[in-house]
């Protein structure tokens, strides 16, 4: 073997080392994104969880007005952090529907009394069925639905303060 060729394995090993180091220092994105973005909302029909509000069904979407579909739960701590942002969205005229994941009427009533109530309707989902049908992987998550019932965007995690203006602009721009 010639003297130059002998360096090739060394260079390959160095390349592998660089690749491993790059992979280690790269912040990994573990977000699970729904494959349904851009498609129509799947069919569902959930009963109400609190007596003062209707449940949630596919028919409530596709009425010509864009809406937010917020996935939340009374046992979810980031949902408490998200509540003020949802109230601000509601004040700006954004309609927010919700689905309560694995929850009880009493716990939801308590959550709404404590953190405010931005919701037009709340569906009761005791086995995460709508969550699985939407390709969602946790609470809270928010889906932006346009007036024709199409999923425009999925927001994973709680909505932060600086994300509110962007969401308002997005919803206002939809038909």
């Amino acid at each position, binding site marked *: 073997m010639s003297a130059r060729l002998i360096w090739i394995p060394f260079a390959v090993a160095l390349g592998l080392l660089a690749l491993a180091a790059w992979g280690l220092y790269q912040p990994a994105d573990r977000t699970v*994104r729904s494959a349904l973005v851009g498609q129509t909302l799947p069919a569902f029909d959930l009963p109400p969880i609190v007596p003062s509000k209707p449940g949630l069904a596919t028919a409530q979407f596709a009425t010509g007005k864009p809406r937010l579909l917020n996935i939340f739960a009374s*046992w979810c701590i980031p949902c408490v952090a998200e509540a003020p942002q949802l109230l601000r969205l509601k004040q700006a005229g954004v309609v927010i529907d919700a689905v309560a994941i694995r*929850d009880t009427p009493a716990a939801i009533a308590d959550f709404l009394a404590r953190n405010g109530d931005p919701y037009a309707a709340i569906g009761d989902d005791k*086995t995460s069925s709508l*969550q*699985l049908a939407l390709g969602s992987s*946790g609470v809270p998550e928010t889906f932006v639905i346009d007036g024709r019932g199409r999923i425009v965007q999925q927001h994973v995690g709680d909505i932060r303060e600086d994300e509110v203006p962007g969401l308002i602009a997005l919803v206002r721009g939809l038909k």
Partner: protein
Amino acid sequence: MRAGGFLIRWAGLALVLASPVFADSTLPPAPLANVQLKDAAKEAQAQALMATLRCVVCQGQSIADSDAEMAGDMRSLVRTRIAAGQSPGQIRDWLIARYGDYISYDPPFSALTAPLWITPLVLLALGAWLARASFKRRGKR
């Protein structure tokens, strides 16, 4: 010095005894999350499928292995659908349509996964070629 050691020992003990806090609901698991189907053949089908589906909460585990509530809900979904007569392939396709190929531990052949399947074959061929070349040289000596 002694007080410091005492503190460290207690802190260590507290760490050992502490249990991780999960953000879980207070509801019982979904009906079929931890209950086998009565039909043994169908239960076997469901088990085989569950072992190849990823838990989206604890992402390194299958839903058969995971204690996460959502994994329980997914097991219940798989068993309900198998009991209703759906095939494992139909259920996998339903989940892939929602979560992408990521949900399945059985990666399909695509442009992205092609290297996974082809690289071993290429490496084997390269090895055979290298071995042949070196055996030939030895033969001539």
